[in-house]
């Protein structure tokens, strides 16, 4: 989910796996794997994965609601939410990807925390896709150059609010630093 869904090669334990990205890049990945002399058995893994009928790629822009609606339709058709969502949004927010154009890394802040707001907007939408039966989100919290005081105040208020909604947040480090990874587990809340 969010990306090409290449993070799991053995799909025996999943009913479906869905990737969401601007464009299906399976073919490009094949070419890149060959060009970079990725070992033969891994090329075969890739081949097996991309041809597996359990896997589906939703092509679309996650900054438009149309793409989110298509993902939501997927849930409504099959389950009450995703059991696992994995994404690494450091690329478009950060400075580490080597071939990036679809990125907000060059946004120069005005007086607002634009990157942070975009990240939280996407995070909020993602959390709603989790199954309330212990659905887990694994995500990076991108480095966005947020002032530590602002980040600390945000997380304090945000975590309290989300806890009341049934979400448990587990951070890689105890300091909730930007650049860490975090897991979010969604549980049903009593009415």
């Amino acid at each position: 989910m969010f990306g090409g869904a290449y993070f799991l090669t053995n799909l025996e334990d999943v009913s479906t796996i869905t990737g969401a990205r601007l464009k299906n890049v399976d073919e490009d990945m094949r070419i890149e794997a060959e060009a970079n002399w990725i070992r033969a058995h891994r090329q075969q893994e890739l081949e097996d994965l991309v041809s597996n009928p359990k896997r589906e790629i939703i092509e679309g822009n996650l900054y438009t609601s149309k793409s989110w609606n298509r993902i939501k339709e997927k849930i409504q058709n099959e389950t009450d939410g995703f059991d696992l969502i994995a994404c690494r949004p450091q690329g478009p927010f950060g400075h580490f990807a080597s071939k990036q154009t679809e990125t907000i890394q060059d946004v120069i802040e005005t007086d607002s925390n634009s990157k942070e707001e975009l990240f939280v907007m996407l995070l909020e939408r993602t959390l709603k896709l989790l199954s309330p039966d212990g659905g887990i989100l694994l995500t990076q919290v991108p480095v966005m150059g947020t002032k530590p005081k602002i980040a600390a105040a945000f997380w304090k208020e945000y975590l309290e609010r989300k806890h009341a909604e049934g979400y448990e947040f587990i951070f890689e480090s105890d300091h909730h630093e930007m650049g860490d990874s975090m897991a979010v587990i969604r549980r049903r809340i009593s009415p």
Partner: protein
Amino acid sequence: MSETFEPGAWRNEKAPEEIPFGERLRLLRLRIGKAEQRSDDQEVRLLEAEIRATEAGKLFDREEFLREEEKKKQRSKSDVLREMQGLNGSGEKDIWNYDGMYSEHSEAGYDEAFLTLLHKLNYESIARLVHERAGELKRPL
């Protein structure tokens, strides 16, 4: 005589408006040539803007120009969002080294990226997490 460290003044250089029009343009072009030799792109941009202002009979304020240039670089959240909404799949440029495990870079794997978290959740890998959760949830596979 009081001493000042303002550029030009202490060397008794003339203010730009005191230099005849043609001479001013010649000097500016000379300075552009030197800046180009130094590959000083910002200075070239500044001097070109100064030439344009001079030709238009206006005084050129370097600080103001730099401030305006900085302002133009800034994009509001709505600008950014609008741009992001206009994106479409762009093939090669849309491939991230970080997207998958099919890279020889050690940081490429999701397992590596989430290793500490997975351990906190008592799983050794994403595959193990999926396997154990599948056993618990018993979804039709």
